[in-house]
């Protein structure tokens, strides 16, 4: 039971980051690796703020805003100009990779390369029957679930959410109905930046962080996207939970060092048997 709970908690944070990735990928088709840089940078911002102010109530919103702004800068400075030039997706990806490197190296130059922690002192522990859940895990679970839920409700219920889905579905038709594509692109980057910042904060609070955690996290998130299905917003959530549960089982039954092997093994199996992901819908492709 404990393993399942641990898996659920880590799955929720993978799912959150996967959703952040998908929030950019579906509407804009930009493979936003720079999200890993944002994921790495936000906890450092939070750490500095926490040292300066001492309160989470100020720190958390400002850190999320910082991540969100970074994401907007990436769109305005890199991805939108490339889009206007009609750049291929590979060019977007390489540029995003470049942005990731710039952010991470800047972070490392400012705050150093050493691991850090956002938590002060020992963690509280609560018992639910035989299951032990630490305070940090509660924060992680509640934070991630709330953010995922809020975003999914936003997508389903609000006008802005509807437009984001429409942009993901058929950008040309969306523009023809008189909506400004660039504005909604900006919205999708803002949402992604905010979600990734929340994911970064909860996992940094739970597990600690350093300047290079981002890429591994985003890698897992994209694996979750592919497993779940890359054509929907629900897919990444399902994929993230599956991945989290699986990884905790691996830790329990085998060893932590096999986590990567099993994760990418699952990716391979899904790609062979369900090339469009578990929830993906088949599209009218020219071939294969």
């Amino acid at each position: 039971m404990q393993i399942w709970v641990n898996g659920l908690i880590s799955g929720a944070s993978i799912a959150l980051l996967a959703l952040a990735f998908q929030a950019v990928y579906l509407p804009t088709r930009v493979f936003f690796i720079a999200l890993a840089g944002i994921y790495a940078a936000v906890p450092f911002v939070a750490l500095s703020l926490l040292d300066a102010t001492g309160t989470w109530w100020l720190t958390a919103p400002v850190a999320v805003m910082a991540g969100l702004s970074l994401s907007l800068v990436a769109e305005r400075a890199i991805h939108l100009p490339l889009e206007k030039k009609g750049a291929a997706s590979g060019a977007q990806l390489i540029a995003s990779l470049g942005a990731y490197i710039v952010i991470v190296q800047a972070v490392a130059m400012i705050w150093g390369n050493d691991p850090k922690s956002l938590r002060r002192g020992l963690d509280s522990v609560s018992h639910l029957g035989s299951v032990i859940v630490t305070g940090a895990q509660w924060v992680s679970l509640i934070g991630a679930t709330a953010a995922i839920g809020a975003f999914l409700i936003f997508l389903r219920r609000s006008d802005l959410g509807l437009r984001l889905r429409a942009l993901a579905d058929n950008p040309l038709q969306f523009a023809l109905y008189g909506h400004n594509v660039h504005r909604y692109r900006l919205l999708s980057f803002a949402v992604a930046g905010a979600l990734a910042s929340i994911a970064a904060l909860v996992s940094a609070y739970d597990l600690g962080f350093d300047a290079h955690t981002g890429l591994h996290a985003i890698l897992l998130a994209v694996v979750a996207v592919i497993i779940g299905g890359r054509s929907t917003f629900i897919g990444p959530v399902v994929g993230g939970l599956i991945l989290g549960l699986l990884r905790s089982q691996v830790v329990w039954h085998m060893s932590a060092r096999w986590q990567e092997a099993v994760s990418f093994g699952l990716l391979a199996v899904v790609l062979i048997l369900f090339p469009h992901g578990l929830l993906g819908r088949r599209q009218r492709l020219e071939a294969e």
Partner: protein
Amino acid sequence: MNYLLHLIVYFDIYLIVALSLNLVVGYAGLLTLAHAGYYAVGAYAYALLSVNLDWGFVPAVAVGILVSAALSLAVSLCSWRLKGDFFVLASLAVQALIFSALYNWHSVDAPLGSLRNLTNGPFGIVGIHRPSLFGYSIVSPIAMAAFASVVAALCALVVWRLSDSSWGRVLVAMREDELAARGLGKNTRLLKVQVFAISSGLVAIAGALYASHVRYLDPTSATLDESILMLSMVVVGGVGNFRGPFVGAAILVGLPELLRFLSLPDAQAANLRMLIYGLMLILMMHFRPQGVAGEYRVE
């Protein structure tokens, strides 16, 4: 003088890396981030065989090439089904797998190179032999520079022959329009397996050269940062032709030398160097997607 010779060896290593990666990225049009993994596989193969079994350069490298080429199936099979961004991601996953294998395959109570402690994990392998050819060990810096240059020249010859052949032509056809190439009966799946195997085999040579030159090896040479560095070398130099990799390797060797004038602390300098590579990638994509000396734009 010795320092210059040292730079020549580095240039040779980078050149082999860039030439081999250019085969995949430039000629076949498949953006991969797993190259550092195969580089490290070659380096580890040489290190283990030379430290444990006292093998010479040629046989040890031969084994490295074979292992690396065999492992390249992990990427080439992915390229069968995945296109574009998702293939890049899959190659990244392969990279992560190779790194975690090199990092985790150790145990403190078993000797280095045994089945339970193949790589010595994060502690790395020390005291790797200098390259030895037919019993003669290459010791002096000038001999090492000459030897590395000869190896690089051989690799360049191989790449030049391949890219100028009808095989290279089919490769370009696949890059231009894979569906059209398949419509002409070209087995592009086989082609992908071949090009990844050749490219991974070549980069294994570069890895072995590196291990024998630095004489110490740990899993950091298989990190993603290394792969990104390799990719930036090819992208900056120019993809899809023969002279791009030369330009890319020269820039990569030259840049740290320029940064030396800033006299930053070591750790900061390393970060700054990477930062500049990242910046170069962004600027390249904006202003010259085909690279400094390239012809074909990244897709």
